């Protein structure tokens, strides 16, 4: 069993892990707004922002430079722990238009607690030589960030690779040549349906370091329990916003259900503050409410897992039940279990 609970020291307080960072769309020119959730979900005082997007949105950036605090701009509470990634995912098809220096400056300016280093994500469609080049480039950028960073904030080296050796080797290399508080695995979103590969990569990373391990982009309902099981310390997700955009109602254990498929119902089956007091129609017709419920769904999934651990329940047996209903995720979990057992 690789599940673990730690405390991560940040400028805005100690963070109990494992933890989810809901992705905030601040800085993006997007019609979807992240609702206020850090007040209503007490154990979710966390947010993931995109440093590059914030920096590139001029009027907003000017406000930050004039002294407006990010947390105020986002409408989240003062003690929210903010993870600012570099926005590397936006470089999927473009060349890198930022530097470690510029990214660090942005991360500092917005008072982020956790810094992700600048990275160049991989694509499954790339030639291998191109992906190898990107892997090396991300490592160089991370090492430069390590040299430049000397603050109290948590610095996570971004690591990419589509095979266990590369990920292990990259982490060992960063560990040897740089000074990081932990590592963050990227580029897994494009291969997320290949559960076996993703599991192997995460396990390789988990074995390569005892430090904080973050996985980018896979914190949705399906992956969350798997990541917890594999000993990942933090993860992020934008699934709650994207799902709400499609009028999808997230239910732990089932995934997302388009509400348009649901007829004639007085109340939804969830006990969160959004659903428990409102009618089905009210939630269905208000996208903000849907987003809020979806955040709750993710938070509840995490809570349930933590509860099972705290109650000293057999987590593998719990996950057997958790994944029983879906052939795909059941298979994924079985693969993960085999691999974990081989290790321990």
């Amino acid at each position, binding site marked *: 069993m690789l599940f673990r609970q730690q405390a991560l020291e940040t400028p805005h307080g100690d963070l109990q892990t494992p933890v989810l960072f809901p992705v905030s769309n601040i800085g993006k020119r997007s019609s979807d707004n992240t609702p206020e959730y850090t007040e209503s979900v007490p154990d979710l005082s966390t947010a993931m922002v995109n440093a590059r997007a914030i920096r590139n949105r001029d009027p907003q950036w000017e406000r930050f430079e004039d002294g407006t605090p990010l947390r105020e701009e986002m409408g989240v509470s003062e003690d929210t722990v903010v993870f600012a990634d570099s926005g590397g995912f936006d470089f999927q098809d473009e060349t890198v238009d930022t530097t470690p220096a510029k990214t660090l400056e942005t991360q500092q300016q917005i008072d982020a607690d956790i810094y992700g280093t600048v990275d160049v994500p991989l694509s499954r469609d790339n*030639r291998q030589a191109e992906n*190898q*080049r990107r892997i*090396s480039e991300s490592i160089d950028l991370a090492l430069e960030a390590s040299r430049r960073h000397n603050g109290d904030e948590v610095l996570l080296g971004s690591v990419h690779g589509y*095979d*266990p050796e590369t990920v292990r*080797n990259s982490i060992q290399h960063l560990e*040897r040549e740089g000074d990081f508080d932990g590592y963050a695995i990227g580029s897994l979103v494009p291969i997320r349906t290949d559960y076996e590969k993703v599991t192997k990569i995460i396990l390789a990373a988990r074995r390569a370091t005892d430090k904080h391990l973050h996985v980018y982009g896979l914190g949705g309902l399906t992956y969350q329990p798997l990541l917890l099981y594999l000993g990942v310390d933090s993860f992020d997700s934008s699934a709650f916003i994207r799902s709400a955009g499609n009028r999808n109602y997230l239910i732990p254990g089932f995934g997302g259900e388009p509400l348009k498929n649901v007829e004639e119902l007085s109340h939804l089956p969830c006990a969160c503050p959004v659903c428990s007091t409102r009618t089905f129609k009210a939630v269905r017709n208000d996208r903000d409410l849907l987003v809020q419920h979806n955040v709750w769904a993710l938070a509840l999934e995490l809570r349930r897992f933590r509860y099972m651990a705290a109650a000293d329940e057999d987590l593998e047996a719990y996950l057997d039940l958790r994944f029983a209903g879906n052939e795909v995720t059941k298979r994924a979990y079985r693969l993960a279990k085999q691999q974990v057992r081989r290790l321990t």
Partner: protein
Amino acid sequence: MSDSFTISDEQRDYSTFGLSGNPFPYSPVPDDEPLVYCGQEDVTDRISETVSSVLSTGKSKHLVVTGKYGNGKSHTLKYTRSLVRDREDVLVGYVAQPGDGFLDIYHEFVYDIGFDRMQELSYEFLAEVARTETDRNPMGASSMKSLIDDGEVLLSDLVPTAVQRLSDVTKFADFARAIVHLIYEDTNLYAWQWLTAEGLRYEQRKEMEIHSAIDDDTSAVRAFTALKNMLLELGYTGVFMFVDEFERIAQLSPKDEQATLNSIRHLMDQNGNGLCILFGCAPEVWQDVMSEYHAFSERIGQEVALQPLTEEKVHTLVEGYLNLVRENGSEGIEPFTEEGLQVVLQRSQGNIRQILSICSRVLDDAVDDHHSGQIGEELVIGTLEEM
């Protein structure tokens, strides 16, 4: 000796003969690592000369060892192999028989080398690249592996360069990719399958960006040559290939036989350096090859023939085996007598395989019948009548 002998060793007590067991192989198949070799001087001289010439000049040289069934061709090849295999500067592979053509020969050769050794070569090549591309100085496969495991070098820096350089050296980019993929746990079995010409599905090849397959004699010659060129680049002196039971090509259709010989000829032409092939072949088949395929036989001008053993050789052979299990101070051919061995020689007509088989049975019978002292004429004849 093979493990299967141990059981009968426990059942029978050879101590009355001053022996800890029966040293003669029961099985007619020569041991993979023969401990005793009763060399015929002209044969060992010619083999030594061929092997030494390749080792000292780096120029390719090949030899055919002919001999009738049971006269020790396989034994000779395997014994030579075990001697050459101990050297660190050569790669040695044994092919038990030529199969249906060069593709099969290639397959057996790579298979005999084995996955672990091939993976080591992959790491050795990465080490070669690391020595020029980084300030590290790994001297072999295991030090390269620890550099990677410890993160002292970056795989992502080395791999593209390694693939490029290996492609330049081998002129076979797919081969280069397969070699490098031997170090990745996700793909190493696919890479191995490809390298052994076992065939791979499209998706499996795609994962490694491999576009072709080793699926005929031509591509097998190309892959073999690529492997040899990689080894020369790594500082190896050469590759030794032992092809046993070459007479089986006579069972192929004339077209396939010609194709096989042509492929081997191409292989020899493309590998003027660093290649030594030793064939074991029945004399009559080799004579046919010589007369019908001049282009082929010209390239293996050398032939050396194994003869039936003489009395003196039989002594040396039997003594060699007995010495493996001596417990008291006895020597020579004891417990066999001169007369006893005479009978063995006559009955076997000097055929090694038969000599060993008779000696083995005689010794066991002597123990079973509670003889002690010497094994003479009478005892041998008695056993032969039962065989």
